[in-house]
């Protein structure tokens, strides 16, 4: 019996183990990488990136690619360029199941068979149990708040008992966020049970390849076969492939950006996978100057469609290049870039449009489309004359053939000349024809007076590497030359050259400004000279320190109107670098990395302190000192404060309890002010009120405004003029700056009218004691109607 019992026990343990581990598997929650849908965008109240973000989480689950804000931006850009979905300051647009399918296949690396649209709970549950992530279309909070929730995508990561787990991109704590199963089923049903099950990318193809292997691990396929172009930037490639935000350019309503493309239809015959240089000429038909880094050429048709043309020199996979240089209104500029021809023989159309970037917004410039028809032919295709092949691309056989042809021609020339010499004996040699310019002199074979010449080899030199403009006092120039030329004089002064037969180089010491150089190469005996001229401009002087001015504008949203200016007496200014930082920051932030603009309206926040600095760079790269060098210029942003909130009594300040509650204003101007239509707005979290003012306040005088029931715990007070413009404010809604423990009535007074009303250190408790017997109310603990900087006793 004992043996039977033990047998039963073991049997049960085995059965129990199956049940236990089975249940553990059922409760497994997939570890799908998580990222919030905001940022990018302007705020949680506007973000619509849940669909793209959910897809990217699934993508990362299979590929291990890093998730970043930039990856979400890439999808927004792609949706805009391919489906016209608004980027909306990278808040994105709401997406549907079809959009996610398109993103998965056309933007990402999934194949059609990897995507299964499902409306079945059993299928979804089965997928989760098989470690397949599922994107579900539901509502925020699983619609627990009814109509207060909106349609929302999440990644389903687990189902266990009466709970579902999701990666909810709409919540900071959204990783494996648990929701009640019933709530999920209800929210899901309102979206017609829409879901996408994601199999590993390319899983069917690999299953075919490995069909004979019964134990092939399905879930190892993803990383091996996900061989699409790496569309998501990593840390090393972000500058190349990812778009970066640029500072928003100020513009008025009259600014027009439009363009026409010259020769917008081009045809080119190329070899397979040949890299060719393309130049697109565009005319700025608008009324404003294009900044070169803000106007770009973008491909049409999306990334996958243009992958066959992609070259690593492109700015991004969608953006081959930006303008070569700034282009003024009415001027013509160029886009220069390389494209790679497709590998298959055939005819292809490469299309691109001009796009302007402003902040995070992209918009078309003009409606012209550049179309390049590439005819890809077999090897014998002659290199197209318009497009130079990449340098050093001539193969070695062609070089050998060319050299042999040259030698044969030379021998033929010599033979012909010897024949001439023999048939015309007695003629002298003209071999001393010195002073040969850098283009070879012609032999004077005049038929009427036939000169018999011993042909001399053509002497030459070239300057292949020399700056026309430089900021280096000592500059090296180099080139090629005939072997016989071994001496070099520059401006009749011997120069030391480094030579290896046919190449030469030498160092020059330049003087500031234009350097006109006469180069004279000669042979060893100085009997043969070849000369040439060269001009190099030296500019080693940095531009002047920029002068930066700022004007605070609080008429609308507070902003600083910044202007800056520098001068350069040499090569001329090329661009400015503009940076700022808050007083609390240690690092400077870039506003413009390169700009030719000299002004900017910079949005600011009242009570913050800003610093700006500007550096000018000239055309040879000389950098001026920063504009703030040895002169810090912090700018404290505040309201205009013609009249300030000067003293506050949130409880009667008379010992007898009379006198009411009031706010005292102070006119710091030299003239009287009419306060008609002005207002005081007094508010805190739970209440607000507005007091409309009237009457005058004299110059450097005070006006006391009676206000009923000012909160004892603190308020925010805003003073506005009759136009609604804020003149001054003090935000003490989180608690009064002084007299925090309210024990008896003392007013609170501002220390300085010129300093911010939001600065806690600018307020103090009144320390006066006055008797005002006329109201028969005892002592008054305030400086009501009087200067704050005096103490009043009796």
């Amino acid at each position: 019996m004992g043996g039977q019992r033990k047998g039963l026990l073991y049997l049960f343990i085995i059965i129990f183990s199956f049940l236990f581990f089975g249940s553990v598997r059922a409760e497994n929650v997939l570890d799908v990488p998580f990222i919030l849908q905001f940022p990018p965008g302007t705020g949680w109240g506007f973000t619509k990136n849940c669909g793209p973000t959910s897809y990217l989480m699934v993508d990362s689950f299979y590929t291990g690619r890093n998730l970043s804000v930039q990856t979400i931006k890439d999808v927004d850009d792609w949706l805009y360029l391919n489906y016209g979905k608004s980027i909306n300051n990278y808040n994105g647009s709401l997406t549907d199941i079809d959009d996610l399918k398109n993103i998965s296949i056309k933007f990402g690396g999934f194949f059609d068979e990897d995507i299964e649209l499902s409306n079945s709970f059993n299928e979804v549950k089965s997928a989760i149990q098989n470690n397949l992530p599922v994107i579900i279309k539901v509502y925020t909070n699983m619609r627990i708040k009814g109509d207060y929730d909106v349609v929302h995508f999440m990644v389903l990561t687990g189902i266990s008992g009466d709970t579902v787990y999701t990666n909810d991109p709409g919540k900071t704590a959204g990783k494996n966020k648990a929701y009640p199963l019933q709530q999920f089923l209800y929210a899901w049903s309102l979206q017609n049970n829409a879901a996408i099950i994601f199999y590993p990318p390319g899983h069917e193809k690999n299953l075919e390849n490995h069909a004979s292997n019964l134990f092939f691990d399905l879930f190892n396929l993803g990383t091996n076969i996900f061989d699409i172009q790496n569309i998501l930037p990593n840390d090393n490639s972000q500058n190349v492939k990812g778009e970066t935000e640029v500072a928003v350019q100020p513009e008025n309503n009259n600014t027009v950006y439009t363009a026409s493309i010259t020769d917008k239809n081009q045809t080119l015959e190329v070899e397979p996978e040949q890299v060719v240089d393309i130049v697109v000429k565009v005319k700025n038909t608008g009324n404003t100057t294009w900044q070169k880094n803000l106007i770009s050429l973008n491909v049409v048709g999306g990334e996958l469609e243009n992958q066959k043309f992609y070259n690593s020199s492109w700015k991004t996979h969608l953006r081959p290049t930006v303008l070569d240089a700034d282009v003024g209104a009415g001027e013509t500029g160029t886009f220069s870039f390389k494209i790679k021809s497709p590998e298959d023989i055939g005819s292809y159309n490469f299309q691109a449009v001009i796009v302007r970037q402003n902040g995070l917004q992209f918009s078309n410039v003009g409606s012209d489309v550049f179309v390049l028809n590439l005819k890809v032919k077999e090897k014998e295709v002659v290199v197209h004359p318009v497009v130079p092949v990449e340098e050093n691309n001539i193969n070695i056989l062609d070089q050998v053939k060319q050299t042999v042809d040259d030698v044969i021609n030379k021998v033929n020339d010599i033979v012909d000349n010897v024949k001439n010499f023999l048939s015309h004996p007695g003629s002298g040699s003209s071999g001393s024809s010195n002073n040969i310019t850098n283009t070879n002199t012609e032999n004077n074979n005049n038929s009427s007076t036939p000169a018999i010449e011993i042909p001399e080899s053509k002497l030459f030199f070239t300057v292949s590497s020399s700056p026309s403009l430089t900021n280096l006092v000592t500059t090296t120039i180099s080139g090629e030359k005939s072997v016989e030329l071994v001496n070099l004089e520059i401006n009749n002064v011997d120069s030391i050259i480094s030579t290896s037969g046919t190449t030469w180089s030498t160092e020059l010491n330049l003087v500031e400004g234009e350097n006109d150089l006469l180069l004279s190469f000669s042979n060893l005996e100085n009997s043969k000279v070849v000369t040439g001229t060269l001009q190099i401009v030296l500019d080693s002087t940095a531009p002047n320190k920029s002068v930066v001015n700022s004007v605070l504008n609080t008429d609308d949203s507070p902003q600083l109107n910044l202007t800056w200016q520098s001068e350069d007496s040499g090569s001329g200014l090329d661009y400015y670098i503009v940076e700022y930082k808050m007083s609390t920051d240690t690092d400077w932030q870039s506003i413009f990395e390169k700009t030719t603009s000299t002004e900017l309206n910079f949005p600011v926040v009242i009570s913050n302190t800003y610093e700006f600095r500007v550096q000018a760079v000239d055309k040879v790269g000389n950098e001026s000192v920063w504009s703030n060098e040895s002169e810090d210029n912090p700018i404290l942003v505040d309201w205009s404060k013609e009249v300030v909130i000067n003293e506050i009594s949130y409880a009667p300040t008379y010992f007898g309890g009379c006198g009411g509650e009031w706010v005292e204003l102070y006119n710091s101007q030299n003239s009287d002010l009419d306060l008609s239509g002005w207002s005081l707005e007094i508010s805190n979290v739970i209440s607000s009120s507005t007091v409309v003012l009237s009457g005058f306040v004299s110059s450097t005088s005070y006006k006391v405004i009676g206000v009923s029931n000012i909160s004892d715990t603190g308020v925010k007070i805003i003073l506005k003029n009759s136009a609604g413009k804020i003149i001054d404010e003090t935000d003490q809604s989180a608690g009064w700056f002084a007299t925090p423990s309210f024990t008896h009535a003392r007013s609170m007074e501002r220390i300085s009218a010129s300093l911010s009303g939001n600065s806690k250190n600018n307020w103090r408790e009144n320390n006066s004691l006055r008797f005002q017997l006329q109201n028969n109310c005892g002592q008054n603990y305030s400086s009501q109607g009087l200067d704050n900087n005096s103490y009043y006793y009796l």
Partner: protein
Amino acid sequence: MEVNKRKVFWMDLIFFLILLALGAYFFYKSAPPANAPGSGNVVTSTSAVSTDLPEGVTVEDLGDGNKLVKNEKDGYSVEVKNNYVIEKTPDSNLSVSSYPDNNNIKKDLFDYRVVMTTKIGNLDNINIDTKNACKDNLDCKSYSIDNVVKNGISWKKIMYTGDYLGSDWPEFVTEKSGKIISLYFQYSDNSFINEVLNNFSF
């Protein structure tokens, strides 16, 4: 020896029963929910794409590019532009929505909208109710209640703030004849909010 055998027997039995209980528990936990349907469609959707209106709501084209939305049941009306879409929400409330393409409306994929709800009650406890609502929402970090007067109507503007989708969406509530009327703006900018509030009347 007899005693020891008996002890061993009871310990075996207890161990067996514990295992049985644990096994039964996990077996129960791993079973699919009793109410989960066996077929594909779990719950029949009740929100088929529709443009029908809530009970008591009529829409009148004013001929000047605007339309007048009247909720006779709750006693208010609002004048809005013709390109806005007037809908009944899944909870049978009235909504005014802007869609990216009015010729191809995909239900719920609006640009922005306002949901208008009405319920019996007053705003006497709005401060404590709002405070509790924030407290009950783990994502809510703070809230605010502001007084706003638009088109002669005093509104309380309630906003909850936190790091979650829907944060900072304003809800304007007012009371009229024993009812609380609420306008909840989703993805909306100030111009749309002002447009609705300035044209809302009882």
